[in-house]
């Protein structure tokens, strides 16, 4: 079970209240987590990654285990604590503006 924490506005968009839990078969990577997230919540397509390029949107970052993973390869394995469900994969908005 993979745990994903979304920022407030994306939780509202996806109609979820707290953490999202995903079952993923195969390697646990940024790409596989986001693919599973968007498959379950299609309204989030384009809101985290660009529709066409699948690049992370500029004002969003990916954190886990107190590390900034935003610039890691989308196909790099996520930390074991994320893969085991002990720690969440966090999508967070940059603090700029508001």
């Amino acid at each position, binding site marked *: 079970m993979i745990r994903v924490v979304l*920022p*407030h*506005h*994306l939780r509202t*968009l996806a*109609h979820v209240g707290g953490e999202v839990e995903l079952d993923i078969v195969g390697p646990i990577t940024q790409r596989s987590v986001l693919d599973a997230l968007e*498959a*379950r*919540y*299609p*309204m989030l*397509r*384009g*809101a*985290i990654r*660009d*529709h*066409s390029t699948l690049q992370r*949107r500029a*004002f*969003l970052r990916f954190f886990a285990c107190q590390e900034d993973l935003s610039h890691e390869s989308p196909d790099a394995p996520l930390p074991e604590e994320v893969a085991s469900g002990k720690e969440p994969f966090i999508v967070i*908005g*940059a603090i*700029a*503006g508001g």
Partner: protein
Amino acid sequence: MSKVRVLVGTRKGAFILTSDGKRDNWQVDGPHFSGWEMYHLKASPADPNRIYASQTSGWFGQIIQRSDDGGKTWHQPGTPPGAPPEPGPPKAASNKFVYDTSAETGKPLTTHQFYDGTQHPWEFKRVWHLEPSLTDPNSVYAGVEDAAIFRSTDGGENWHELPGLRGHGTGPKWQPGAGGMCLHTVIIDPANPQRIWIAISAAGAFRTDDGGKSWKPINRGLRSQYIPDPNAEVGHCVHHIAMNPKRPGVLFMQKHWDVMRSDDAGDNWKEVSGNLPTDFGFVIDVHAHEPETIYVVPIKSDGEHFVHEGKLRVYRSKSGGNEWEALTKGLPQKDCYVNVLRDAMAVDSLDTCGVYFGTTGGQVYCSADAGDSWNPIVRDLPAVLSVEVQTLA
């Protein structure tokens, strides 16, 4: 009895204001989509309960919302809330605006002029304006930044660019205005659905006569000091265009500076600023029943985006321009420094035409007597980006 429904987009959410035909007792509903920039909401003339909304964010991008019950409930077209996930490709991508680079366009366009004069690739940022079809609730146009026009024919579930606009040849001379390079005005000719006018800041006005396949600039008569050739074919910062649907082809324009009119569907323009205290501004609209009665809100200058002399004044011309009168009754005439943005004025079609506008200070004003007097419907919303009005039976 008739009702009016005012759709207000703000920097931090959408609001729906409703009243009976007297327009003196209002119900304020919202915020919808709180915290998001709501650039524009507009209802289908063919189905008043069908409302499209542009919800945007610098963080999360573009979302299209749709209501089928007059704004009570909303969903993203194609992905209604609570729908169980299904395997396979998505059924719809209502927030997917991808520029057409297909070979069929013949000349996919890749760059426009940037602020510094260099060429810059087209990058989708947001939807500024949604214009539903006059006859089909499922058809709707979207004017976007960077400037292009998209169309959906399935209720907003999927969007496709009309590439003839960007591809017609002048694109490399288009440049962004202070608000970005936005396509902000879409007007469909009720007498000829093949004819559509659009306007871009800063490129100018354009028209199609074949349903969007081909487009041509219609800027003859416009004069802009901030481009090397003030009379150039394109490059003009058109802020808004309005037309009375009962008189298609007569257009009124608020340009960056200058108020203009055209009596030949945009082929030629002439200035009608007349005695306005300043002819810089954003909004312009036309009385629902008197096609020579037009409204503007003069703004001090392009460097000072607030009203002139600290007074919020709507100016009305009953002669199609040149002779203007200040309308001040009920509006602040001291220490007022708000702006009124380009899509933030609208008229209803009740017998005594109502005029509405919203300010960057969060006020939405209504005049139930064609501008003679004004009352605030609500005073303290977030900065208002757009105002549209529905007149309901």
